């Protein structure tokens, strides 16, 4: 980009900034949260009653969320639907979209706070800071971030002490196309690593279809799945008898770990506890002390 373009862009930005933003309020009172972690953080900061609508990936804390209007799947948001809730802040996690819709919301004068760092446990602290700044709860956010950091450090240290490194594989159900295994770069792979196990599918990237042969080649000690997927497939017994899995030691010995999907994968304030729960499941012999219970993990 040359100098003139830079100048031009600067002028445009200045002009846009000067436009009146009638929906903008100093202290957001009507928050729409798109993304499970976003919702969790607002509730963890004690500001849950300000949340007026959430997306369908927001599942925790369920009791408070259940009666709220749902704005749909976070990748398929609707401009006017969200506007109809009259939000003064839209908290959007990295996956929220489509981009056109977020752009239009901003163009319509809605305040959109879009967190754009990728899903990792290390993104949780900046994510908490981001939400805290957006809803003007900096002190509470700093405290939450500090606590989370300490919890994560503690469980990391505990996991580091464990001698054995079992292999594990995470399987996700995608519609009717069958199961897919989590390779490098996925949220599940990070959780498995944090929990002190080796990802048996570490040589592929992303979610890849799970074939019987690939599964046999990987032959992991543990199979990790979301509770929802296990339930859809008819329970742990049914999963262990699936043709793609039946030959695996993990299936024969029923070493199938089912965890709630959002808890396991959404990288929010509960992530340190999720790492601990997963570590306990993957290392039955090890003695891993529980993390102190927190208000937001209850």
């Amino acid at each position, binding site marked *: 980009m040359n100098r003139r373009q830079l100048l031009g*862009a600067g002028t445009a930005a200045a002009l846009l900034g000067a436009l*009146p933003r*009638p*929906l903008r309020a100093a202290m957001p009172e009507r928050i729409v949260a798109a993304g499970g972690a976003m919702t969790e953080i607002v509730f963890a900061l004690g500001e849950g009653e300000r949340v007026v*609508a959430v997306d*369908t990936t927001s599942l925790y804390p369920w009791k408070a969320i259940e009666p709220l*209007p*749902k*704005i*749909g*799947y976070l*990748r*398929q*948001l*609707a*401009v*006017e*639907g*969200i*506007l*109809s*809730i009259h939000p003064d802040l839209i908290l959007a996690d990295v*996956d929220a*979209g*489509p981009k*056109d*819709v977020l*752009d*239009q919301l901003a*163009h*319509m*004068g809605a305040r959109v706070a879009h967190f754009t760092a990728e899903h990792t446990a290390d993104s949780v602290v900046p994510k908490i800071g981001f939400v805290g700044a957006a809803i003007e709860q900096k002190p509470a956010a700093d405290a939450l971030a500090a606590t989370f950091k300490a919890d994560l450090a503690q469980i990391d240290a505990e996991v580091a002490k464990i001698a054995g490194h079992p292999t594990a594989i995470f399987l*996700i159900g*995608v*519609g009717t196309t069958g199961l897919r295994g989590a390779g490098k*770069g*996925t949220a599940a792979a990070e959780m498995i690593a944090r929990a002190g196990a080796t990802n048996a599918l570490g040589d592929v990237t*992303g*979610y*890849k*279809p799970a074939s019987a042969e690939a599964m046999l080649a990987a032959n992991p000690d543990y199979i990790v799945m979301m509770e929802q997927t296990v339930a859809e497939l008819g329970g742990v017994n049914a999963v262990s008898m699936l043709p793609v899995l039946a030959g695996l030691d993990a299936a024969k010995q029923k070493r199938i770990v089912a965890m709630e999907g959002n808890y396991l994968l959404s990288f929010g304030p509960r992530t340190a506890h999720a790492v601990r729960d997963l570590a306990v499941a993957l290392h039955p012999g090890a003695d891993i002390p529980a993390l102190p219970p927190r208000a937001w993990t209850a």
Partner: protein
Amino acid sequence: MALDRPGEKRAALLLPLLALGCALAFVLSVAVGPVGLSPGDVFAAITGAARDEATRNIVLDLRIPRSLMALAVGAGLGAGGAAMQGLFRNPLADPTLIGVSGGAALFAASFIVFGGAVSFIPEALRFYGMPGAAFIGAITVVLMIKRLSQRDGRTEVATMLLAGIAVNAVVMAGIGLLTFVATDAQLRTITFWNLGSLGGSGWRSALVVAPITAAMLALCLVSARALDAMMLGEREAHTLGFDVETAKRLLVIAVAAGVGASTAFTGMIVFVGIVAPHMVRIVIGPSHRRLLIGAALLGALLILLADVLCRVIIAPAELPIGVVTSLIGAPFFLGLLLKGRREGSVLL
């Protein structure tokens, strides 16, 4: 001299009726949405006396461009379907057959998966990145299918049908490959693209799609008489004095551009391209000048209404429009088919 005397009378009724329906559906589409605005509010916003900035924005920058988009997309799908059915002499043909949707889908999926790597696109044009890719894809695949079905400088329509099936299969395999390398997030974006939605519509997209659709409609109308004659077969149409090759080229390119542009911005919207022309033909017969207009109007009406449903039925969330058109279109089409069979219709 137009075709079809009884059809003429029915058309004299049906076309204005459809036009009126479209106008009403357009008004409905502007008046109704998840944000509850009174007709007075909407009217005030249109006349420049909006109650507040938000109302003005919702009506002028959201609902009107979206309704315009629905109108254009529906008209394009309807007329495109009518043109393809006439060209292929088959009431089950639609623009999908010549690879418009497949090409658009393949290139859109490629852009979703690899688009992040294309950093040379200036920011101002980023918005047009994926639709642009989809549009180029639609045209490329259509021209490829057309090229494959050429012999001695003539496009063989029957070969084109087969080439279309083969190339579409390759395209689908390509999309399958892309979903393999796609991340979970990209995969979901591709899935939603395939379901179609008018959700992202604004003036930027409406002002691209509407003129292209209008041009497509005009080009199809120019070839309307040739399409009429093609009812007898290409050879007879030529014997009747029509430049069949030019008409074919014109129609294929017009439909590729028109339907390609709307598919590029809205994703795949199925069934309207088959159902709209088919229904209109049943009422007013196969005279293409009126059939094209009727199918365009009915297509626009269907998309406008389907989009209103999408917006309000699960508000504040939105349904993908492809789901609604399939849910309504497929059973309706089936009913039509069965009814036709009962009445001993020779052709569908």
